């Protein structure tokens, strides 16, 4: 938060409420993601159910943030950094809520995979992918908390790691499916899960871009490195 206070203390209070709610939403999204990745790795149904049920809290908090942001715009007419602050809160809240949706989807698909009872699920890369993505989301929210554009840029550049892992995992699953027709159903869900994790990585970079915009008043001016080649993979 900026140290210089507004003449209107109520304006400062409004921005604090918005900031705190967004941090809380960030924490919830991180928890949901962690629960989903852990649930996937450990095949733990209780954890997965917790993630599925927990998504409603993110939806509710996002709605609260939207309402508060609209109120601040209507009543306080924020300008310059204050305006960016409110707009960024709106965008980041939407991103975090979408991350929650992906976490829930991972949990749902993992439960389906568990009922199929396949063994030898290819899972080394997806675990690492999940870990890197969680770090990116945490660091993105930390860069927001600290208003640290450099840290945000580091998150933004890191997405290429997830892209590489996603492409590798995608190929691995396709290979597994072609070797073993019983793996087709599970493999399809795994591809979607991996895509969800890769999208969460993209969303982390989206938060990082918003932090950069908040601090510097402009989006990062370089092209983001990308390496997700799965849309070009046709088979093994």
């Amino acid at each position, binding site marked *: 938060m900026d140290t210089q206070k*507004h003449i209107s203390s109520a304006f400062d209070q409004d921005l604090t409420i918005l900031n705190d709610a967004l941090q809380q939403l960030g924490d919830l999204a991180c928890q949901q993601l962690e629960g989903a990745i852990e649930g996937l790795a450990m095949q733990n149904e209780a954890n997965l159910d917790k993630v599925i049920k927990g998504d409603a809290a993110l939806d509710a908090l996002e709605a609260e943030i939207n309402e508060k942001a609209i109120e601040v715009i209507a009543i306080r007419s924020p300008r310059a950094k204050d305006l960016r602050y409110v707009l960024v809160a709106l965008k980041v809240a939407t991103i975090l809520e979408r991350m929650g949706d992906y976490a829930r989807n991972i949990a749902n698909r993992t439960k389906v995979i568990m009922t199929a009872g396949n063994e030898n699920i290819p899972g080394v890369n997806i675990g690492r992918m999940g870990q890197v993505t969680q770090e990116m989301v945490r660091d993105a929210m930390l860069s927001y908390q600290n208003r640290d554009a450099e840290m945000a840029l580091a998150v933004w550049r890191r997405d290429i790691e997830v892209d590489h892992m996603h492409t590798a995992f995608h190929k691995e699953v396709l290979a597994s499916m072609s070797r073993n027709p019983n793996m087709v159903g599970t493999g399809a869900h795994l591809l979607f899960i991996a895509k969800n994790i890769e999208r969460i990585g993209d969303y982390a970079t989206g938060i990082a871009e918003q932090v950069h915009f908040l601090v510097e008043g402009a989006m990062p001016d370089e092209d983001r490195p990308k390496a997700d080649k799965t849309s070009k993979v046709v088979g093994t």
Partner: protein
Amino acid sequence: MDTIVDIAKAIKIQAKDVNVFYGEKQALNDVSIDIEDRSVTAFIGPSGCGKSTFLRCFNRMNDVIPSCRVEGSIMMGDVEVNSPQTDPVLLRARIGMVFQKPNPFPKTIFENVAYGPRIHGLAQSKSELDDMVEDSLKKAGLWGEVADRLADQATGLSGGQQQRLCIARAIAVGPDVLLMDEPCSALDPIATSVIEELISELQQRFTILIVTHSMQQAARVSQKTAYFHLGTLVEYGDTKDVFTLPKNEQTEAYISGKIG
């Protein structure tokens, strides 16, 4: 984007190193600014920052304050506003002014507008004067409301109408520039919107300088904004930049409501 061509506007007025003193007290420090032709430039800043003092430099209104001394140059074309050779009466015909409170003469609506052209000898006949009055009232967006009661007393008009009458009076003598010193501060929000809409229309013909305490108003009506603080021009730039990404921390604090 490549397709958008940035067409720089011509400079209408150049102020250079303007210093203003009230007795020993310096009210403005080395203010230099280029005012674009046919655009609206807003002067903003906290009370006592010098914005109204600066506005009054453009048509020598500070001459009427005995203790006031103005230094520096204000060039409009090849006319030096501050030169002793420049006749302030003729200057004020080229650079009209609208004040905070509407101040119509206690005369008819027609006479308020006809006064300027008459004393400057701008009309050769009654019908020409009638045309000037009608034209000015139309430009000020008031004709439709007063066409059938030109002989009524101007003081019977509403506040917003009186202010538009004052604008008609100012433009009746054919100025290039209009100075507006908080022209809406005595008006309700509806009358304010009407004046702001009028300012946007007048900008097609006139160069407008406006002092306002309303930052929303400055953002709405102007293309350029100048922020003053303690007699110094702190920042001057495109209004959209000043209100979204100001370069100076003082400007940011002021437009964000952090200093009064």
